[in-house]
């Protein structure tokens, strides 16, 4: 390949990357602003405009089937585009949430620049078709996340961010070693190519299993799945609420997006002699168990939500374990609903935390005095439990339907276990999800001042609640969009 051709490829590829270029532009503008004194209204408008523009340009090119960019190291297709839109929406909601925060550090230009960097990293992560790209974009997410986790600059936040950093660096070092072994086995970094899959199917050695496990460690860290979850509770408890809400959605979705690709490839599209479907099922069972049972003992609400988000990852992993194209579509449905219901809870959580309510006992009696925040929280928690009439139920129904179908096709008993076990876990999750409404509505409590959401919080939670309820009664609205998403490497 001569230089002329190479430059041509770069030029052509760049024309596909408008959303990412817009985000990068936003980051640079923000960094420039941060050099001057605080002008928070401009900062916020720069962030929201760049996210909105990026989302719009994603939506515009949505019809695009597949484009291989930069000689194949990243690939644009509808699957990654969908996840990117979801990540953008999540970050937009986070930005609006920071408006109600009383911590001034949450409104600084650097904060938003870091936020946008994570979104950008997420974009590239879900598009990656190359181990190097996976590593770089994952590190962009991780390193910015470490900083964000400690951004509140309190004692707890810095402790959380230190633990996050140490755990995350070890996880990524382990993952990197796995990547290097995979490179050794296949001789290429482009994991969607025939050469890579051929290498995996032909190379008959347990080193593949070791390499796969090591690489998996990094992915599982990113999505917060067992056994790579122990960072989550400390980070969640320490960091400020908008950051927690953001970390529980955007990096997680990006990680899930790349995990699907990786599992598909490492199992050589099901031809590998190692049963990666069973391994993911075991991971899902483990994640569900750890998340739900640890959450039972928690009294701090943010800590509880950490375990809850671990458990929710378990449900997303069920979608991956189901392994069918439909399983992945249903997983996208669940991921969408997860974004909505998670943010509902966190918006209320921020509201309560500003009134010094963060332990379950503190919620006693809030049901009547802080009526709308409590009700919005109740709806969010019911949706997370997966009870009708919320889309959380529909999402679980879909995900487990695809799992049943997968069991039917493969006749693997582990899938049946996952099916029964996953659904029974819902009952366990009820114990802790219900604890908050239980205290809020059934207990008489200390005096809190009467209060209500401010305008932004009202608007956000209303929209999200409508989404969560609306998608239950008319899931077709979203599914017909997701149906147009096809999953090709």
């Amino acid at each position, binding site marked *: *390949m001569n*230089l002329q051709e190479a430059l041509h490829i770069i030029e052509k590829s760049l024309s596909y990357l408008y959303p990412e270029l817009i985000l990068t532009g936003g980051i640079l503008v923000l960094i420039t602003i941060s050099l001057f004194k605080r002008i928070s209204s401009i900062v916020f408008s720069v962030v929201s405009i760049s996210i909105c523009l990026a989302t719009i340009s994603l939506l515009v090119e949505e019809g695009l089937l597949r484009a291989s960019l930069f000689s194949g190291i990243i690939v644009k297709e509808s699957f990654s585009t969908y996840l990117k839109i979801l990540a953008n929406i999540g970050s937009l909601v986070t930005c609006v949430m920071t408006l109600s925060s009383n911590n001034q550090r949450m409104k600084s230009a650097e904060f938003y620049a*870091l936020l946008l960097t994570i979104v950008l990293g997420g974009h590239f992560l879900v598009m990656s078709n190359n181990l190097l790209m996976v590593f*770089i974009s994952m590190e*962009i997410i991780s390193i*910015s996340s470490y*900083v964000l986790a400690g951004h509140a600059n309190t004692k707890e936040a810095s402790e959380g961010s230190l633990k996050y950093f140490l755990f995350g660096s070890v996880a990524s070092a382990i993952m990197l070693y796995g990547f290097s072994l995979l490179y050794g086995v296949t001789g290429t970094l482009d994991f969607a190519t025939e050469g890579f899959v051929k290498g995996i199917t032909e190379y008959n050695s347990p*080193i593949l299993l070791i390499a796969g496990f090591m690489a998996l460690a990094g992915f599982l860290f990113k999505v917060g799945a067992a056994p790579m979850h122990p960072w989550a509770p400390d980070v969640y408890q320490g960091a400020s609420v908008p950051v927690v809400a953001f970390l529980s959605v955007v990096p997680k979705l990006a990680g899930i997006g790349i995990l699907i690709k990786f599992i598909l490839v490492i199992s050589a599209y099901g031809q590998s002699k190692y049963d990666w479907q069973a391994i993911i099922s075991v991971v899902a069972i483990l994640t569900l168990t750890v998340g739900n049972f640890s959450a039972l003992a928690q009294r701090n609400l943010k800590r509880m939500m950490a375990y809850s988000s671990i458990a929710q990852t378990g449900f997303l992993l069920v979608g991956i374990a189901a392994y069918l194209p439909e399983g992945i579509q249903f997983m996208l449905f669940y991921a969408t609903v997860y974004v909505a219901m998670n943010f509902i809870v966190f918006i209320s959580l921020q509201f309560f935390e500003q009134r010094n309510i963060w332990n379950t006992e503190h919620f006693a009696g809030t049901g009547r005095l802080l009526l709308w925040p409590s009700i919005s929280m109740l709806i969010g928690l019911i949706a997370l439990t997966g009870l009708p009439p919320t889309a959380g139920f529909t999402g679980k129904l879909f995900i487990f339907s695809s799992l049943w179908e997968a069991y039917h096709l493969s006749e693997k008993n582990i899938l049946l276990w996952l099916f029964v076990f996953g659904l029974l876990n819902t009952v366990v999750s009820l114990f802790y999800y219900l604890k908050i409404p239980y205290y809020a509505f059934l207990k008489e409590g200390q005096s809190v001042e009467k209060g209500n959401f401010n305008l932004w919080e009202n608007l956000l939670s209303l929209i999200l609640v409508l989404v969560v309820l609306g998608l239950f009664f008319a899931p077709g609205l979203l599914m017909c969009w997701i149906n147009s998403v096809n999953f090709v490497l």
Partner: protein
Amino acid sequence: MSSYSIILYGFILIALISAIGILAVNNVFKAALFLLTCLLSLAAIYVLCLAEFVAVTQILVYAGGVVVVIIFGIMLTTKLTGKPLEVKNGNLFPGLLAALAFASMLVKYQSMMATSTAELSTMSENLVSKTGVELMTNYVLPFELAGLLLLMALIGAAVTTRSTPE
């Protein structure tokens, strides 16, 4: 055994010993110096493996940058806490067990990869210039992203250490 092999084995030995040194000593500063030795001998190994550009980067960035930053960090922390540089050990047994398990597993299966593939071939091209071209063509996207990563790491470090007004 050729002199080439002797040099290679020598550097491998230095790297291993200094790595174990980090584990063995209880003084942070000494550990940092061991890390420096280890990284430098690895750079030498890279040269022997015909990865000159990586070797140079290793010396400039790792040895010159990372280790210096680490030593700087050590000094700052000792100044902040006013305590000696001693490091305590914990989880000694599980740690060593895990490390041994990993080492034996990796050595066993990874050495199978070494024997199953042909011996290392040699290349005689001008590697540094080729690396440069590659970096600006095939790897331009990761390259730019790495730039962004460095920028954000800088800002992140600045934000993290900046003291709050309160």
